[in-house]
């Protein structure tokens, strides 16, 4: 019964390294190591982020449900984030601004550092500085707000009142629509490619 390793198992660290290698490899192959490609999603000249991102999320959510269906994966032992409405929304907005200014997100910046991007290294330094700032001002600025809007471990299916499987099906259809839409937008508005 998966997860195969106990949370305290030392094997997890080796698995983590291997998973990381695969993760980094895919990110680089998809072109996520260049900030100008990533930023393209916000200006309409390159929608690769949306395509990779949603395909990955759909594949994983569908696959995890299949693992559960075949009795391989026990969902009660799998990481499941608690939803904090307000802190997540505000955190997300801050991250979105950071994305536009910096052109990376933490995962892709690490990937880009490995391929020799100096701007990515600056971004990584920035992340560390940001967390230092957050940690030193934690008691004064963030501690209370971080707990705002706790609605528990809610799944999207529970929220809209359908089963997990139906929610995934809706997610798939939504994703396919989004893929169609971004291609159409690019064609319709005749957005030219940007050289990078």
């Amino acid at each position, binding site marked *: 019964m998966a997860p195969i390793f106990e949370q305290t198992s030392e094997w997890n660290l080796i698995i983590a390294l291997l998973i990381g290698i695969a993760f980094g490899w895919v990110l680089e192959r998809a072109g996520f190591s260049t900030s100008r490609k990533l930023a393209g999603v916000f200006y309409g000249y390159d929608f690769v982020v949306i395509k990779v991102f949603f395909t990955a999320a759909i594949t994983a959510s569908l696959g995890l449900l299949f693992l559960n269906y075949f009795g391989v994966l*026990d*969902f009660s*032992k799998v990481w499941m984030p*608690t939803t904090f409405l307000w802190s997540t929304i505000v955190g997300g907005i801050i991250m979105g601004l950071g994305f536009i200014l910096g052109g990376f997100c933490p*995962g892709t910046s690490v990937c880009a550092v490995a391929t020799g991007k100096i701007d990515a290294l600056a971004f990584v330094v920035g992340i560390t500085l940001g967390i230092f700032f957050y940690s030193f001002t934690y008691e004064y600025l963030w501690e209370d707000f971080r707990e705002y809007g706790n609605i528990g471990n809610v799944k999207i299916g529970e929220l809209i009142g359908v089963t997990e*499987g*139906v929610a*995934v099906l809706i997610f798939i259809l939504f994703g*396919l629509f989004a893929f169609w839409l971004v291609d159409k937008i690019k064609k319709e508005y005749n957005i030219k490619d940007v050289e990078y």
Partner: protein
Amino acid sequence: MNGKNLFGIILLIILGIFIAFTSLKKHGKTEIEPDKLINKTIQKTRYVLPEEVAESIISEDPTLQLIDVRTHKFYSKFTLKGAINIPLSELFKEENLAYFDQDIYKTILFSNGTSDADVAWILATRLGYKNIYVMKGGLNQWVENILQPKENEVIWDRVDDQLYQYRKGASEYFGGKVVEPEEGVSAPKTKTPIVKKGKKQVSGGCG
């Protein structure tokens, strides 16, 4: 739209529709169907005799896991060698279920008579746990057969004789004809289960 994309879209939709009709399995163990449970309950193979239990204890069978389903009070007064105490009322505690959730040990339940152990057996079996047995007659039978074997006036046949000899031997092992049974078995040594740790709250993905 090229052929590859079309293939991907169709595959995704088919898989999605399929999964939409399934429901989430909340636990790894699925509960057993009622009709199958009846079949299992009727079968007498779930009983083991006190003599068989005694033999396993004497031979220090490493796959033996004895579970005393009586209350803590009874357990502290007298129990079988190596038995673990899981009172019937605490059966569903997570740390207690961990004793059942394994496939290494042959689990034998016992109480004073047969009934409490039987109830525990049905509950555990319903939860899908396997390799569980009930000691027939419970500790009453144990005391009668093992600790104070009656001498049969007439030995009817060879089988009876063997059984009697066996009981006599076992009785000696367990402290022979002791009316106060505590002496024979004190300080039960228990093994700790391999408790499958639940997920601790992760502080938040990469956050």
